[in-house]
């Protein structure tokens, strides 16, 4: 059981976290690049608006990672 958690569940969870965060950050970056391409002089405002959701998203990803590692360390 421990081996299953260690060698399957935790890497699987970490992979899911990466997929989720990757989709989120990718959509954000794509929309920001699109916006800047259409309106180059609004680049500063767009960057500012993108920053906050980006950091919150990153926070969720890191929380998931920390909990996955906690399961690994405490599950022994």
């Amino acid at each position, binding site marked *: 059981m421990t081996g299953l958690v260690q060698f399957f569940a935790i890497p699987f969870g970490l992979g899911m976290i990466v997929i989720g965060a990757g989709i989120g950050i990718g959509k954000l970056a794509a929309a920001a690049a699109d916006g800047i391409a259409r309106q180059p002089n609004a680049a500063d405002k767009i960057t500012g608006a993108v920053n906050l959701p980006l950091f919150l998203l*990153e926070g969720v990803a*890191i929380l998931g990672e920390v909990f996955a590692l906690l399961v690994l*360390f405490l599950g022994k």
Partner: protein
Amino acid sequence: MMSVQEIAHQAEHTAAEAGQKFDASKVIIEHVSNAPEHPLIHLPRIFGIDFSVTKHVFMLWLVAVLVFVVVVWVVRRYLRQDRLVPSGFMNALEFVVEFVRDEIVQPNVGRKWVNTWTPLVLTFFVFILCANGIGLIPIFDVVGLLDHYVLHTAEDSFVKHMIHGGTTATANFNVTAALATVTFGAIIVAGTLAHGFVKHWKNLVPHGMAWPIYIILIPIEILGMFVRPFALTMRLAANMTGGHIAILAILSFVFLFAELFGRAMAGIGVGLVVSVPLAVGISALEIIVVLIQAYVFTLLTAVFIGMAIHVHH
């Protein structure tokens, strides 16, 4: 941090069983952890809390003293000169102060409260930036090298204790938890100053809804109150630890491959072709991460304080 200590102990046991074999996890954990079993200064336990000065505590004091001395010295020198135009390091300091005030605090907190909250956010920014930046410099590893080849100090000297463990104070979850606790308090104080004590707590949930919604909403908002500083804690500490782990893991390839093939040349070849270029790349990335994480922590602090002041419901 109990889990890390246990892992460190387990890693030591397995390394002792395997003889002199290179153990990457032991090296990494020893570098990253606080190494409470090798304190720099032994102090007695008071109320069950170990007050010994460990690596991260030492780094924390070093950073605090450095920031305090440098900033006070520069500002005093500026105040003593007879013209208003800043010179030298004061220019950089003014740039940082104006950046934090105009780019981080004012857009989130608003013009009315900007002078109340800039000092706190500025302190966070300068302290976290210096702690992160000093963590990038391998001070203790250089000290260890110097000790090994030049100084030859005794087995339990101050220097020998110094070369166990990591060097970034903000990579310790306890340090960032303390910083986030200050943010937690600041959010409540900001709401109380702007709206009064009772109104601040009422502002946490939107007004004028059917009462069954509040049964779900109030626990969620209370949970959210604690999750925000927790996310701040984890983000900063995990980012700072992650860089160290990545660099060490990549540099471990040198020893792992040398052991795998039984000759030193294999390790040196892997080191020259893969490890050193990748480690240089990650170090360059870490310089950006250091700046971004200091910015993120202060920005989110300002955003949360602003959310307590300007309630959107």
